[in-house]
């Protein structure tokens, strides 16, 4: 059986793009989270390890987002991660109890996550890719043979 790929980088001349997969919407959002931090830090495992080690000392945050479409919901979710990183120097990891609800008006996300403050030393030493924004270009959820996928382009 082929190994399931959570996301893969797509060739893009000026910016960065990833195609994200999920066997359900919750898994796709989990993988989007992983893909985002992989693009930013180059190594998700390192971030995950750091977050796990500090988990007990960090506050647990609840994030609730509601948008008119799945595409807008993913855009908001990734923009939220970027805003917290750029402005508050924090990362959300690990994610717990991620729930997605599709409604007649769009889609809703609810999530609990540990918010980890990155140290000045880590920020000074890490090779971080600055994402200006999550773009809407080509942002479209596709469901084929039970697999969800979406491509996200980040303006850097």
């Amino acid at each position: 059986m082929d190994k399931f790929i959570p996301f893969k980088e797509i060739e893009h001349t000026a910016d960065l793009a990833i195609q994200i997969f999920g066997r359900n919407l919750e898994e796709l959002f989990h993988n989007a989270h992983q893909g985002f931090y992989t693009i930013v830090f180059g190594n998700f495992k390192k971030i995950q390890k750091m977050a796990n080690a500090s988990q007990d000392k960090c506050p647990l945050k609840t994030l609730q987002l509601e948008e008119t479409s799945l595409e807008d919901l993913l855009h908001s979710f990734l923009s939220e991660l970027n805003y917290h990183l750029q402005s508050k120097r924090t990362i959300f990891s690990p994610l717990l109890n991620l729930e997605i609800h599709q409604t007649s008006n769009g889609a809703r996300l609810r999530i609990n996550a540990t918010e980890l403050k990155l140290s000045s030393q880590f920020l000074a030493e890490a090779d971080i890719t600055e994402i200006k924004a999550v773009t809407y270009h080509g942002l479209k959820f596709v469901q084929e043979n039970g697999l969800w996928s979406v491509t996200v382009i980040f303006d850097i």
Partner: protein
Amino acid sequence: MGKSKIPIEKIDDNLFEIKPFGGMLKPGRIYASDEMIAGLLEEEAPLQQVINVAHLPGIEKYSLAMPDIHWGYGFPIGGVAATDWKEGVISPGGVGYDINCGMRLAATGLTESEVKKRLQKLVEELFKTIPTGVGASHAIKKLSKNELKKVAQEGVNLVVEQGFGQAEDIEVIEEKGKMEFADFSVISQRAIERGLDQLGTLGSGNHFLEIDVVDKIYDEEKAAALGLFQGQIVILIHTGSRGFGYQICDDYLKVMSKAAQKYHLNLPDRQLAAAPIQSQEGQDYFAAMSCAANFAWSNRQVIMDLARRVFKKVFNLSDADLQFRLIYDVSHNIAKKEEHQIGDKKKTVCVHRKGATRALAPNHPLLPEKYRTIGQPVLIPGDMGRYSFVCIGTEKAMEETFGSTCHGAGRLLSRRQAKKAGAGRNLIKELSERGVIIQAKGMATVAEEMPEAYKDVQSVVNVMHNSGISLKVARLKPIGVIKG
């Protein structure tokens, strides 16, 4: 012309036209060489964006593309479009996420031979002093909300008052470093938060501060008027409005997306989202964009002055001996209210320049007095291993391109391809062997930004020179670079 179905006609050696079809309201015009247009016809997406922009309500004359055109969000990078100020629309996609990303050139009285001996030290000190990359501590104290408001509404005046540069710098900044329409009340809390600690920071990606040598003069008279001479050391800065501007663009893309539906605008791409300029949404975006533009001019002002202080320290010179002065600062991502000749009438239009540089002709009333007779300086960066150009605007630019020209080289390799090409190589050593000392926060950036990842900017500049839109004055060769 090849297999592409896009109907394109050659107008002259460096100009091509797409006649209106479908929902296009005006023709598309692309400044390019034969080789460039062949590549664009193969790629198609950037040309499709030229066509899309021609759908914008109120567009005047042409949807224009400069020779460094490449695919962007909504508008192509290298795109220019002017819309009627009363009846037309304004689009954040015509400005980009990095509002007032632009270039600044400052001169010193030093020569290459005087700087070479202490170049390594100079680059190190610049890198230590000017924050680069994500999360770097700010070089100046974090702004209060009130100070950010002043920067956003008053432009460079505040930072000059605080001792960053001289009052005479203001004269040689586009718009004198202040867009009058700026209104801080339309800025989101998130944009404010992202702006508070980012003034005086370079950022990452393709942003840079370079120490350059004037290595070739094409027009002695104009170079002398700008105060440039062969062998002179100059500073070239490329950065913009940082997180403050990115957040404003993101906020208003959402607003404009709803506005496009509200005003029943039939647009071919979501990222072309727009609103009538005179609508509340249009006015609010213009006011918010103006705040980001003012922030960006202030950002480059602070960075330039930090560089001046480093030069003084490293070479132990007084201001009088260093002769440091700003030559010009110009945006290449902005929307402006301007007057242009359309047919036999002068009209007020909103000129969107996305990856395009303003290039005013001699005697234009918006030019600083000292450059009135020669035209507006245009600063076109290349890659960090080859060269950048100083050009000058012309009357032909006013007639054909709403006083606009190209803005840079454009990427040849994706970041991933560049990293692959750089794997196993000591790029810092390679650049050093070419006479360029570089210091960057991350090695990934050095690989992504290596010279071979970019097209040769000379070919872009030559198209505009040969078209008579912007004329070459001087070539600058980098010898020291700092990057995020």
